[in-house]
């Protein structure tokens, strides 16, 4: 019997095979993960829907597969496990939680990937057409409309139960077609469109260049995650009039505090790094400057102020950038934050960061300190309005009370959306942030 790609949940109707965990001759049991599939948002394990001996693996790494496609063929005669299907509604919920690629400690990354629920990437609404003769699941009224519009419904991805196509699916499909049709526009037009609809992925790449003319090349397909990063970075770049503010913070005292309290935290089972201290300082500064914790609702001409402070932490992983979110930073103790950061690192290593873990951020921190480098200009993680980039701290000669003294200096940059934030506000924010870092209250570190 064949094992086909089951429906794994919203946004998981298709994807690219990134890892095959079984080979011919292997015995698999129902529910066992047979391969891993990457889509725009995540890497999801695909469970076997039946047990048996693998007679043939029908896909290879890099293949694009969609729901219903045959993945492996089992030798029915050698069935090793009962061929029962898992309850169809359950795996969806469970699998969806699985997430990101190869491990990585929450080390710095150059720029963030949006963690916010953007518009469903339109491409996912397209699918390999159903075979001829297979009727798409759609009401007669929708079928008629599709016919009138000349749309082949077998190419439209249905969002309802059982893949049923409803009006909104048809509309999304058409919008996508239109977008593709108008893709190669002049840059100005693209930018204008992007301003109008911030999450609209921008145009197609320029025409293909034959690089082999100048020497040997190797081509590798972009992973879905990389495509998502590219699309979102481009959207941000086209949408946001970005200004970057540079500064340095003297973190000598902060680092001394960290060293002083580290053993106490160690006893509580967690390692005290600079990251939770920085999170805390940023949260305090955001409280004083709520505009930096806001979003711009261009459609309504309103500023959305958020009463919560959820900080995105850019994480560099082997597969690419991920931005999990630490919630309610202002309300948590340093011990709690330390544990949160550690847990995040663990989750990233075990590929367990879920979509939900990456949603709802209000401000992002991209810390390259662990790798090196000084100032850099990060890109804003829409729909947030500002991002903080941190470089590697280094001992530098600075003047204190007319004397040159060595101090531990951390380079920092604040990139902000000038549509909402003016230069004066940004300068004041930066000053306050530097203050918060330099005059960090020891009381905050005390364990109760």
């Amino acid at each position, binding site marked *: 019997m064949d094992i*086909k790609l*089951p*429906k794994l949940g919203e946004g998981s109707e298709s994807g690219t095979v990134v890892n095959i965990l079984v080979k011919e001759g292997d015995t698999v049991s129902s529910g066992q993960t047979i391969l891993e599939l990457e889509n725009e948002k995540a890497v999801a394990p695909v469970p076997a829907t039946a047990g048996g001996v693998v007679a043939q693996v029908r896909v290879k790494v890099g293949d694009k597969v969609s*729901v*219903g496609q045959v993945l492996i063929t089992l030798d029915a005669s050698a069935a090793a496990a009962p061929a*029962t*299907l898992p*309850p*169809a*509604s359950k795996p969806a919920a469970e699998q969806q939680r699985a997430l990101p690629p190869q491990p990585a400690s929450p080390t710095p990354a150059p720029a963030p990937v949006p963690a916010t629920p953007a518009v469903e990437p339109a491409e996912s609404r397209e699918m390999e057409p159903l075979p001829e003769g297979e*009727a*798409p*699941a*759609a*009401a*007669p009224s929708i*079928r*008629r409309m599709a*016919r*009138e519009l*000349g749309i082949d419904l077998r190419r439209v991805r*249905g969002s*309802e*139960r*059982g*893949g*049923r*196509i409803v009006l909104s699916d048809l509309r999304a499909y058409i919008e996508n077609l239109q977008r593709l049709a108008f893709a190669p526009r002049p840059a100005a037009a693209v930018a204008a469109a992007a301003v109008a609809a911030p999450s609209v992925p921008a145009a197609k790449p320029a025409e293909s260049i034959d690089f082999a003319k100048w020497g040997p090349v190797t081509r590798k397909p972009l992973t879905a995650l990389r495509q998502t990063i590219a699309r979102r970075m481009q959207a941000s770049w086209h949408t946001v009039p970005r200004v970057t503010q540079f500064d340095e913070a003297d973190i000598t005292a902060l680092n001394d505090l960290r060293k002083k309290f580290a053993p106490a935290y160690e006893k509580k089972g967690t390692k005290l790094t600079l990251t939770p201290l920085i999170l805390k300082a940023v949260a305090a500064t955001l409280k004083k400057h709520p505009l930096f914790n806001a979003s711009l609702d261009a459609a309504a001409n309103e500023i959305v102020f958020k009463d919560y402070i959820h900080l995105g932490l850019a994480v560099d992983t082997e597969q690419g950038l991920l931005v999990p979110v630490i919630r309610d930073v202002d309300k948590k103790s340093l011990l709690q934050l330390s544990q949160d950061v550690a847990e995040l690192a663990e989750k990233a290593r075990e590929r367990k960061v879920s979509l939900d873990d990456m949603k709802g951020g209000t401000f992002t921190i991209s810390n390259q300190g662990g790798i090196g480098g000084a100032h850099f200009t990060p890109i804003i993680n829409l729909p947030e309005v500002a991002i903080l980039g941190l470089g590697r701290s280094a001992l530098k000669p600075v003047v204190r009370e007319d004397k040159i003294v060595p101090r531990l200096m951390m380079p920092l940059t604040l990139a902000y959306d000038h549509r909402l934030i003016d230069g004066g506000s940004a300068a004041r924010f930066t000053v306050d942030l530097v203050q918060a870092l330099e005059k960090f209250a020891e009381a905050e570190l005390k364990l109760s």
Partner: protein
Amino acid sequence: MEPIKTQIVVIGAGPGGYAAAFAAADKGYKVILVEKEHRLGGVCLNCGCIPSKAFLNVSHQIEEARESGERGVVFSTPTIDLDKLRAWKNSILDRLAGGIAALAQKRGVQVIYGRAYFEDSTTLRIETNEGQIFIKYDKAIVAVGSKPALPKAFDLGNPRIMTSTEALEIEEIPGDLLIVGGGYIGMELGTVYATLGSKVVVVEAADSILGGADPDLIRPVLRYAEKAFKELRPKTKVAKMSTAGKKIKVTFDGADGAKEELYDRVLISVGRVPNGENIGLENTKVERDEKGFIKVNNRMETADPNICAIGDIAGGVMLAHKAAREARIAIEAIIGEATEFDQIAVPAVVFTNPEVAWCGLTEGEAKAKGIKVEVARFPWSASGRALTFGRTDGLTKLIVDPETERILGVGVVGHNAGELISEGVLAVEMGATVRDLAETVHPHPTLSETFMESAEVFFGEATHVFSKRRIEH
């Protein structure tokens, strides 16, 4: 005489033809409707669906009165006044045909009674009682239907050998009636004659009756037939028939060798053939298949750009409701709309006792085509409503795509299955999932609950049945 000019002419006033004529008139076209019989409505109304259901209703009444004794309500044995019964049936037909004529008149559809003959692709000649009429048309819709097949070997010119047309006149209640062909017509009429008092024998060449329906749906009908009919003989063919005085001598070719028997009447119900002959189709570009059905695309267009064909003559399942849908599609195609026959489910109903109805994919089809399905069954023995009228010999089942949980087909056998199936048709046509059905509130106590319960059976959580297995395979 000058030919009449019209935009659209429809040949045949059955459920396809009159629906097409009315739809065209409603869109503002000048329409002529031609009918060769003296009454509108076609086979369905005059010698098919409607009269057979009238008689079947009587048949069910007789059965119910008989069964009622078990519940303590005893009726005396009914006496049957055939003339009155026939007159009652005819009054229904007159009323319906009159209604169609009135609707045609109100819409300004001109009705011409006469035989139509294509002179060429744009000209139709009509032979009426008052002479010839010529029609010049822009578009013609052929809806001439079908008639019962009467193989040459059985066509002895003896009125005791009947087709469904004659059988529905019920000239007499024969003592011994042979029905050749166990399809829906044979089984329905067998039920009528058996309850009126005939000893009915049904012979069927195939392994079982009601070809096309799944065996589990047929079983209750078989059980009824075993009781009500004298005999049901599958895998049996009629080799020869001859007149023997007031009887018909029939020679059978069965599993246990040849056999001769005498019958008072014989009903031949071995299928239907298209009415494509003698209407001048050869003078047009219309093409027909080897069986004589007109070849059409899914917009009901024939090889002749001026001519569409709908209903039985266009092949496929020969059912009135399919013809009526095709009628609308033909008109929309003529107007130039983006239309096509894309129905997923065309329901089939057999008005036997109990009724059988199904739509979409059957289990048999799924098996033949290698489509993986799961089947959820809800037996009516667990339905309170079925118990209240003493008919628990029913079954509701869903044929489901295991991956998407979409309902691909629905089957029902039991009292009123013909009325019940529509919910299944809607579910299949809308692309509904089992979950949709399970989470739709159904009124209690009704038979419609069996749909909801069979959906619950699929998830192994039906209230009124207990199953350890989540799903029946």
